[in-house]
Structures are given as C-alpha cells and as structure tokens.
C-alpha cells in the first residue's frame, strides 16, 4: 500500500481584496503551502463588492491538526466580525506528508 498520512485540508472562500492577508495569516500559523482557485458563488449576501472586479478565491491549504486549529482560531478572531468568510475542514490522506508540516 502507498504510504499516506492523515492531514487536514482547510478550504477558505474569500474576497479578492483579502487574498494577501489570508495567505500571510495561514503561513504565519504554520502552513507550508496553499492552492488558489478562482470561483464564483452566492451566499448570505446577495451582492459582493468584488463581483465587478472579478471572481472570489478559494484557498486550500493542507496542514496537520494542530496547525489547522490555530489557523481556524486566527481566522475567526480576525475576520468574522466584518467579513463573511466561508471556512471548512476536510480530512485527507496525503503522500509525502513530511512536506506539509
């Protein structure tokens, strides 16, 4: 069997303007990498400031459980009052886990 290790994937859906900040935040809290996808969407707010400026972003970052917890707490503390980020965790099994911790 191929050797996989359980890790967490954090997915964050954010507005364009927050990109640099959020990447800073996850890196400071121990993420070793991230993957960004351009997305569209609809949620609690019908209207988004960034709609006219282009799409939103989804950032996925693969981290271990402690790091995931730290990032989630930081995100809640810093952004949840003014911004309506969508943040969720999934369980994954990764190859070469040493790269991500």
């Amino acid at each position, binding site marked *: 069997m191929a050797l996989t290790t359980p890790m967490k994937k954090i997915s964050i859906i954010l507005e364009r303007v927050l990109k640099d900040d959020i990447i800073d935040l996850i890196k400071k809290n121990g993420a070793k990498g991230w993957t960004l996808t351009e997305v569209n969407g609809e949620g609690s707010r019908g209207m988004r*400031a960034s709609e006219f400026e282009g799409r939103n972003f989804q950032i996925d970052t693969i981290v271990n459980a402690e790091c995931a917890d730290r990032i989630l707490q930081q995100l809640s503390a810093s952004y949840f009052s003014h911004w309506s980020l969508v943040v969720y965790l999934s369980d994954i099994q990764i190859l070469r886990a040493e790269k991500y911790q």
Partner: protein
Amino acid sequence: MDALTQQLISPVVLCFLLGAVSRLIRSDLALPEAVYSGLSIYLLFAIGLKGGVALSQTSFTEFYRPALGTILIGVVTPFIAFYAVRYAGKLSKEDSAAVAAHYGSVSVVTFLASVEAAKRLGLESESYLSALVALLEIPGIVIALLFARSSNKNSWSKALHEVVTGKSIVLLAGGMLIGALCGKQKVSELDPLFVGCFKGALCLFMIELGIVASKRLRDAARAGFRLITLGFLLPPILGAFGVAVGLFCGLSVGGAMVLGSMSASASYIAAPAAVRIALPEANPAYYLTLALGITFPFNIALGIPLYAKISHYLAIWL
C-alpha cells in the same frame, strides 16, 4: 433638445443600452472577465498616453488653473456627497463615507462619453483633460475615507496603497508619463491601436457596462426610495459645480462640460476596491447601486447633454 438626441443616438450610448437590454431578456451575452479586464487596461493606458502627449504640448500657465480647479472638485464633492447621503439619505457613517468616496472620484467611461459628446456637439474640449482624470481619482477617495476614520490604522493605510497603486492610477499616470516623455511623434506609431481602435473598443466595453449596470439596477429596490432619488439628484448638483469651476479656471465651454461630467460621475473601478478594504462594514448594495446602477446611466443618457446646456448658459452669464 438636439443635444439630447445627439447624445442618445450614438454608438457608445446605444451599446450601453444593448448590454442593459440583453441582461433584461436574460441573454447569456457577457464579455469574458479577461477580455473586460484587458479592455479596461487598454482604455486607461490609451487615455493616459493621450493626456501625456497633450501635456507635453501645453504650457504650465495654461494647465495649472484647471489642475487646481480639479483638486478643488476632488475636495468639495465628497463633502457634498457625504452630507447628502448621511442626512438626506439617512445612511450610517460608514455607508455615507463609502458613497462619498465613489462620488469624490471619477468614472473614466463617463469622462470618455462626455469628450465624445462635446465633439459631436461641435464643442472643442482641451486635450489635456485626460491628465485631470488621474488627478481627480485620488483626493476624493482619501477625503471620503477620512469621514469614517476607523480605529484600524492598518486597513486605512492599505486602502490608500490600494488607490495609489491601483491599476487605474498606475495606467493613467504611467501612460501620461510615457506620452509626455516620448512626445507626439514617437507616440504616433502607436496611434492605430490607441487612437484608431479606441472608439470601437469603448463600444465593446460599454456593452459589458450595460450588463453590469442592469444587474445593479435590479438591486435598486433594496437601496430604498430616498437613496434612488439621491442617485438622480447628486449628479446634476456635482455636475453644475464642476462646470462652474471649469469655466472659472478658464476652460472652454466644451472643457467645462467635460469637467462637469467628471465631477458628476462616480468611480466604479478605483473606489470600490479601496472602500471594500477600508470600510468592510459599508454595504456594497448602497454604493454600487448608486454609482453603477443609477448615476452612471443617468450621466450617460441625460447628464452629459445637461452639463453641456449648463456650460453653455453659464459661459454667457459669467
């Protein structure tokens, strides 16, 4: 009212209408994001270049008064907009500041439509006016944000950075510098693309703006009656003020009409991004609907010929 029909039956305005209608009938027509963004880069840079070449042929004595007048507009109009929206429109401090930032700044496309309209009406407008667009982009936003000076200094300085280094300023100012440094002759090699194709490209851009404005208009109901009324009243007030300043600074009738249109217009490129950063609490439903859903089409269709009339009468009167 000849100016009005002249204005309405022009490719630029009709393309805007085409976009708006296509949205109403739920067509799938839409410029791809990349093309829209590429077009906006092209338009901004072309305006900058043109302004730069014009500046290189303008003496300082001719230029400094309109420049000062433009800065005056940049300082005064956000005040008017802020207090109108705050007290007549009954919005929160943050929302009012956000709206003021949009009206304090300038809509590049309204500027272009106004230059076009002036030409069609047989009025000459000073060619260095595009240099004033770059000048008017910044102060309005900065002053407006001051109204809601949040405790969060960090986000404030980021918003300022966003405006100053935003692509609209960089392209306008960069194009201007390149135009001024290279001069008319060297720049003329670029004319087939940046001058010849300009109006056609503007038409395509207008189709997309029509689509977006029409989306916004649907949200207008949510913005409330008071606010919609303001979206119609602010442009004539700010426009008349701009025209008066322009004539006062020695601009021609056409030039004052264009400056009036700039003053009356609300930015929807530089301002929204800056506002989103500095004032995340402000509700986009207010400022985007006003700027893009109401004021922009109003100016394109009715405002511009109105400022032409105002400029005409004020010029006689002054």
